[in-house]
């Protein structure tokens, strides 16, 4: 779980996860609001970036940390702002541990639970279409933070896009790794908090620029 300045919510998100996921790893991306101690008190293992690097870098750190646990059977990435549901994460993890798939990607477009504004829907759909055209993967939602990997696949992931373009980079790498992957319907809970923290639509311009100037 990548965390950057989420002290007001990260504690309750971790407490919600712990009954089902006893090993929660928080990668603190150099927060300045005390998110680290909140996460630690809530019962998560905290991996601390010494400086702010970006969400992509935090995800990669979290994956590498999790891989050093020899008893690891599944890695789930989860957003710290409480926009994902624990039930969805549980269902996705069980699809990994049962051996049904190597990678389970959350998608908010497989059912109609998630309420989205038209503009946001359009941008996300375009992003998914773009990654479909460039990688051939039939994805419906390319920018969903809820994902599950088995350790063999996670080992092959090397995210180098430190900031927001890591989602598209991940899809490109999955296209090369060719795991057994499935999409899983998830609900995104848009609270006022996650909306205020979430990316503005303009940030999609930055994502595209980052990808072009690789």
């Amino acid at each position, binding site marked *: 779980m990548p965390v950057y300045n989420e002290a007001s919510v990260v504690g309750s998100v971790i407490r919600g996860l712990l009954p089902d996921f006893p090993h929660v790893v928080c*990668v603190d991306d150099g927060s300045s609001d005390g998110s680290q101690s909140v996460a630690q008190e809530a019962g998560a*293992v905290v991996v601390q970036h010494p400086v702010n*690097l970006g969400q992509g870098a935090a995800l990669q*750190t979290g994956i*590498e940390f999790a891989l*050093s646990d020899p008893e690891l059977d599944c890695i789930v990435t989860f957003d710290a702002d409480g926009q994902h549901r624990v039930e969805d994460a549980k269902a996705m993890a069980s699809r990994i541990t049962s051996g049904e798939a190597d990678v389970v990607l959350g998608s908010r477009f497989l059912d109609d639970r998630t309420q989205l504004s038209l503009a946001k829907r359009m941008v996300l759909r375009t992003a998914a279409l773009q990654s479909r055209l460039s990688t051939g993967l039939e994805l419906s939602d390319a920018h969903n933070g809820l994902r599950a990997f088995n350790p063999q696949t996670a080992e092959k992931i090397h995210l180098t896009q430190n900031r927001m373009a890591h989602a598209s980079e991940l899809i490109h790498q999955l296209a090369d790794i060719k795991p057994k992957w499935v999409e899983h319907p998830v609900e995104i809970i848009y609270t006022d908090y996650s909306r205020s923290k979430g990316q503005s639509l303009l940030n999609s311009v930055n994502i595209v620029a980052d990808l072009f100037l690789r």
Partner: protein
Amino acid sequence: MQIIVQIILVLAVIFVSLALMRGGSNARHLAIRRIMLVLFTCVAGFSVFFPETLTQLAKFFGIGRGTDLVLYALIVSFLVFMATTYQRFRHLETTFTKLARRIALDEAQRPWVNQSVERSDGR
């Protein structure tokens, strides 16, 4: 006739810039870039004393004035500079991220390590 020369010139500019931008940081490309920089400086200096020569050259290419020719060369060199700086910056960022990640992973507590130590102590 002029339009053909202009199209070829634009294509050449795009091609050279792309080649130099994509070139990365190996020594050969660095040498080429430096040679171009020296050439560019020489031509710029030369044009101060003999503006007509440059204008003639520009006329030959169908560009117009000699200053325009210098301007185009400047734009190309600026693009190349931007691209190489960007690449160097990305490279630096990658190194820096690896360093920071190493520190983060080394400092993190590993709960499963402590557990196994306790278990082996108990036995």
